[in-house]
């Protein structure tokens, strides 16, 4: 099989593959920036919880209007924001927040699945949990593009306080910055997960958000460079995952997440080996 047939032909001949690729690329731009900040703020678990927090609202949207992307997104956004606020209210300020967050995660997921299963079929439950990246239509694509553009612009505008708050949150408050950046960031995470929801579902949306960022973090770069590398890894995982799903007849969402996981594993091994070898070959002080 030629490289053209392997890489280009699936996207050239099939409109749904092109739509899936464009959706993944738009989401990757957002996921690279938001995921990097999540990893740096040590909020990976929060990201996971918020991913599932989208579920009950999306389920209510489903009960109200069926599998309508708009209502699923609006419902998901509303419940994600409510859970983010509740989680902050109940667990905020406590050193050990993990048990509280996991409780939210389990309740939100179970409630969502119950609501969807109540009126829908098993196919609906699977679609809500795992998404359907190959079924992205033009309307859903426009929604993803609009959400991603807004999130990228918001991160660009608030980049400095979000980055500083990640390592010394007391500094921002002490210099008189009263804006609730933690909550603003949580809202951006929810919006990111809602944007990914149709493509990856509530269970998988956290994968393309966190795995490329975690892979980029292995390389010990600065914040902006980590964001750029995470975006690059996300792009590579999207293309590789879509092609693997096409040629191997695999489910596309999990294939993309697996490709991102592979990049994380490779980064972990190579960057770890480089850190150990660099001092031996005299590059430790570089």
């Amino acid at each position, binding site marked *: 099989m030629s490289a053209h047939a392997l890489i280009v032909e699936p996207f050239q001949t099939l409109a749904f593959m092109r739509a899936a690729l464009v959706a993944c690329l738009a989401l990757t731009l957002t996921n690279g920036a938001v995921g990097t900040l999540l990893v*740096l703020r040590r909020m990976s678990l929060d990201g996971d919880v918020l991913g599932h927090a989208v579920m009950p609202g999306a389920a209510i949207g489903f009960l109200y209007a069926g599998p309508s992307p708009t209502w699923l997104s609006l419902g998901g956004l509303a419940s994600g924001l409510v859970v983010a606020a509740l989680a902050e209210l109940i667990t905020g300020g406590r050193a050990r927040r993990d048990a509280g967050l996991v409780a939210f995660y389990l309740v939100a997921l179970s409630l969502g699945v119950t609501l969807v299963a109540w009126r829908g079929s098993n196919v609906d439950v699977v679609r809500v949990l795992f998404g359907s990246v190959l079924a992205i239509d033009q309307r859903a694509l426009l929604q993803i593009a609009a959400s991603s553009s807004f999130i990228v612009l918001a991160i660009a505008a608030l980049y400095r306080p979000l980055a500083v708050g990640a390592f010394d949150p*007391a*500094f921002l408050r002490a210099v008189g910055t009263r804006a609730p950046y933690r909550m603003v960031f949580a809202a951006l995470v929810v919006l990111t997960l809602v944007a990914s929801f149709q493509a990856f579902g509530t269970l998988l949306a956290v994968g393309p958000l966190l795995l490329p960022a975690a892979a980029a973090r292995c390389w010990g770069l600065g914040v902006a460079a980590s964001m750029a590398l995470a975006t690059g890894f996300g792009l590579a995982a999207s293309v590789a995952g879509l092609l693997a799903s096409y040629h191997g007849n695999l489910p596309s969402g999990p294939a993309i997440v697996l490709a991102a996981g592979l990049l994380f594993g490779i980064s972990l091994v190579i960057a770890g080996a480089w850190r150990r070898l660099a001092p031996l070959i005299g590059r430790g002080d570089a």
Partner: protein
Amino acid sequence: MLHDVTVRYGRRIALEAVSGEFVAGSLTAVVGANGAGKSTLLAAIAGVVRLAGGRVSCAARQRLAYLPQIAAIDRDHPLTVSELITLGGWREFGVFRSPGSALRARVAEVAETVGLAERLGRSIGEVSMGELQRALFARLILQDAAVILLDEPFAAVDPQTMSLLLDQVTRWHQEGRTVIAALHDLDVVQARFPSTLVLARRCVAWGPTEVALRAMAA
């Protein structure tokens, strides 16, 4: 000025009805056993924790600098020493502007003052605890604050760094700035701090160091 300042973490009272005044230009040590509320008091003055009761009034609120315990700083964060010190100019560049060339020159100057001129390009995870504390002091110098709050500033630093940082604290005092430091080393307090506040969740004693430490021992 503290008016019945009370702070709770859940049901636990960390600080209860502390009242009094830090005189402008004073150099005060805050001492007490572990859990006495030293760090909480500084965080309350800095506005970092929510008060359960009372009030903190500070005329120089806009010119306040706060150094938390070094353990609160995430050393894995990808930030260079230079970038960390530059944050001291936050009030000049804020959220949207870039640090100017004048600020960058001042960063080099204060890095020289704290002996970090050769370490500016290093990441904060690569330097020693002492060097990180020096960098945080350089950030404070750049903040040019009227009120400086230091939470255990000499913990985990070598004697040479401690001496350098103590000299900087004395310099701030001589410049007329109000400096409040939570400390556990009573020898340092006796030798370098004219005023002392003794805490045990409540105010036990507050005044000249000798008097306050006598009350603490009683």
